[in-house]
């Protein structure tokens, strides 16, 4: 197991270098130029070249890339062209918000999602199944900018229960977290349903029934546990993508997370910010997938057995 994790972590290093290279090349290939955003409406060629020099954009792309990688190796990510603040400080400040929102969304989405999926599977073809399927598909299909605005109008403007926007504790987090959780809830319910249905007809379930084990225990231990793998995968992927920020949700609710920060960096062509966010985001994505892989190891004996065989 340790060897398995070590291998995965070791793979992260070349992966990150690959990512820095691709991101650097792509951001530089984008149309647009940060200098024009920095100089304002009235400038001269002299001012433009002065600012270009000041932010180091006058050097060739290869030299800038080498410079950036050496900066990274010292544990730095440079300063934003616009705010002059250290990118790493900003990411560190915003990450807890993003993490909180992602965890909140998952706490809201996972239990009801799995429960609904399980009920739908166990009542396959019946009324409850149809209602749950329709409900989960509609959750999946509703765009967050619409559900978010509706939730905000309902809880913020009409009921005056929750602050419509801002970053802060639980009460600020609820609306964006619910908004973000809705599509995830739909997906989890769908995947759980399919996965449970796959397991229900397996021979070992028949064996368990034949052995006279209580139906409730079969559902909880034999069916649900064996149906978990695809569900954990979906949760892992959703969670990892939330860790990279949820731009629309964060924008609607004025939530100060990584998503908005990255987006603003992209719009302004703030290269150090874009690079920093993508590197941190990729790392988190890979790490989150690693956690999912490790969870497989515990959930699925087949993974364990294959591991020891090797």
């Amino acid at each position: 197991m340790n060897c398995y994790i070590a291998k995965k972590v070791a793979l992260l290093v070349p992966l990150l270098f690959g990512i820095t290279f691709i991101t650097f090349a792509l951001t530089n290939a984008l149309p647009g130029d940060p200098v024009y955003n920095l100089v304002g409406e009235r400038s001269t060629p002299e001012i433009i070249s002065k600012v270009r020099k000041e932010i180091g954009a006058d050097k060739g792309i290869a030299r800038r890339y080498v410079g950036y990688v050496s900066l990274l190796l010292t544990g730095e990510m440079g300063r934003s062209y616009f705010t002059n603040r250290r990118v790493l400080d900003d990411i560190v400040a915003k990450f807890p918000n993003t993490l909180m929102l992602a965890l909140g969304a998952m706490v809201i989405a996972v239990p009801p999602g799995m429960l609904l999926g399980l009920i739908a599977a166990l009542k396959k073809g019946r009324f409850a199944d149809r209602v749950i399927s329709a409900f989960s598909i509609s959750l999946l299909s509703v765009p967050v900018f619409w559900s978010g605005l509706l939730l905000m109008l309902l809880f913020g403007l009409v009921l005056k229960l929750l602050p419509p926007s801002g970053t802060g504790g639980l009460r600020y987090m609820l609306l964006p977290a619910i908004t973000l959780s809705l599509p995830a809830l739909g997906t989890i319910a769908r995947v759980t349903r399919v996965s449970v249905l796959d397991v229900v007809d397996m021979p070992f379930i028949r064996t368990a029934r034949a052995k006279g084990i209580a139906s409730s225990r079969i559902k909880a231990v034999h069916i649900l546990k064996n149906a978990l793998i695809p569900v954990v995968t979906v949760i892992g992927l959703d969670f990892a993508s939330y860790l990279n920020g949820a731009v629309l949700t964060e924008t609607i609710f004025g939530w100060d997370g990584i998503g908005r920060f990255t987006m603003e960096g992209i719009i302004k062509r703030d290269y150090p910010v874009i690079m920093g966010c993508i590197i941190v985001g990729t790392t988190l994505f890979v790490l989150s997938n690693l956690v999912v892989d490790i969870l497989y190891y515990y959930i699925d004996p087949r993974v364990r057995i294959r591991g020891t065989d090797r």
Partner: protein
Amino acid sequence: MPRVIGNKIRKTGLFSYLIAFSLILVACTARNRIEGYIYYRLNSNPTTLDPALVNDVQGGTISAKLFNGLVRLDRNLMVVPDIAERWETGERGASYLFHLRRGVKFANGLEVTARDVKFSFMRILDPRGKSANSWVLDKIAGAKEFIRGEATDVAGITVIDRHTIEIRLERPFSPFLYLLTMTAAYVVPEEEVRKLGPDFGTHPVGTGPFAVKRWDHNSELVLERNDRYFEGPAQVKGIVYRVIPEDLTAVTEFEIGNLDVLTIPAYEYSRYRTSSRWSNLVASAKGLNTYYLGFNCARPPFNNFKLREAVACAIDKGKILRTFYDGRGRLAEGPVPDLLRKWEVGAPRRYDPERAKRILKEEDKVTRPIQFYVTSDPEVVDIAEIIQSYLRKVGLDVKITQLEWSAYKAALNRGDEDMFWISWWADYPDPENFLFPLFHSSNHGAGGNRTWYTNNEVDRLIEEGQAAGDAEERDRCYGRAENIIVRDIPWVSFWHRTDFTIRQPYVKKYRIYPIYTIDKGTEISF
């Protein structure tokens, strides 16, 4: 994992989940404010509050509350004393002697001296600095040499004593005092700037009526009243700027009382104007700006005056203003906003599609689609499509290209387009600000003249106006220059936008100003 997941658990599980959720909801309230503070909205996080680096309206609006210049604008757009209590003008407007008020202190407790003024100005001009605002002060004698790195000092700035500073210009420049009202000319404390380096933009220290108390980037910026402000403390205890990118969210926050003043988003304008609850709380200010359709006069097809005239006649801008724009502006006669113009503009082109068709018939056919460049702002894209449909009616094929702002500016600076849509907002309230950067041939491209318009007569008149000491003479020069420009049609001037805000009924003494630097935030109260 529960051992039993029967109906009972399923029900109680779901039930307790919902109960927990409802309890959290009940414990919450939508309102959240610090008592005595006034709440404003920002669309996005201000990039920096360092006056040397600010180049956006948001940063400028907040900097005005934190800093002061030697002089400033009053509500009638007149230059009045600020840190300088008086000044003397000499050499026919080519030199200024400023006498600073005594006892004006920065938030760190140190007194403002003439040395700080010199340091602040040199910082803007420093060739190693990042400031893109050197044009604000480059009229000072010796500034250009300093910017080019050929001199170690700016010859035209002389500290006479602790409270007196002399500024000499290369040559008389009539709007110079206006330039000193701009954000870039605010006075900053030398010690703090040196100490904080690049962090000064996040931890600004100034002389203004407010100081930064807390800045949660992308979320909230809290300013606290400076009780020792030299003109007396502000009425409110502080200001909270909340960063709310989404318009509808901001409207919701306003309506539940979490914001006190809000710039009305375009689509909410008619609702607030007609609502019995809100209509008398709407304030408006005629903006010093011009929205225009520019032509690339340096290349075919629009190097041909006749084609520019045809486009000008083909579009009913009055109708667009009344319908699409909801009347949120005044129809423009020329580039200079109505508030600043003291002369008549002769014969701007009126909507006349038949004339446009006639001209197009007489001229060589435009064989390729006209490249119309716009930013990706949804309102701009809508306007571009309206213009496209007007031009199609007279037989011109227009292709719209949407670009992100910096790509758009880069394309315009290169002259890639045939036609473009943009606006110009005053830096200071002088017609010169709408003529020199936009039409003088020394400013082609990035300088502001994005139509690449060249007319020696216009150049000469603008320069004469800049040098004229006498207001009448100045207006005569600018008036003639504008009339020539309107005749030549490098632009079609569309409208001057009027800004509208809405405030809560308990907000007192609120005013909206045509230039953001005027509002120091000291008058508004509850």
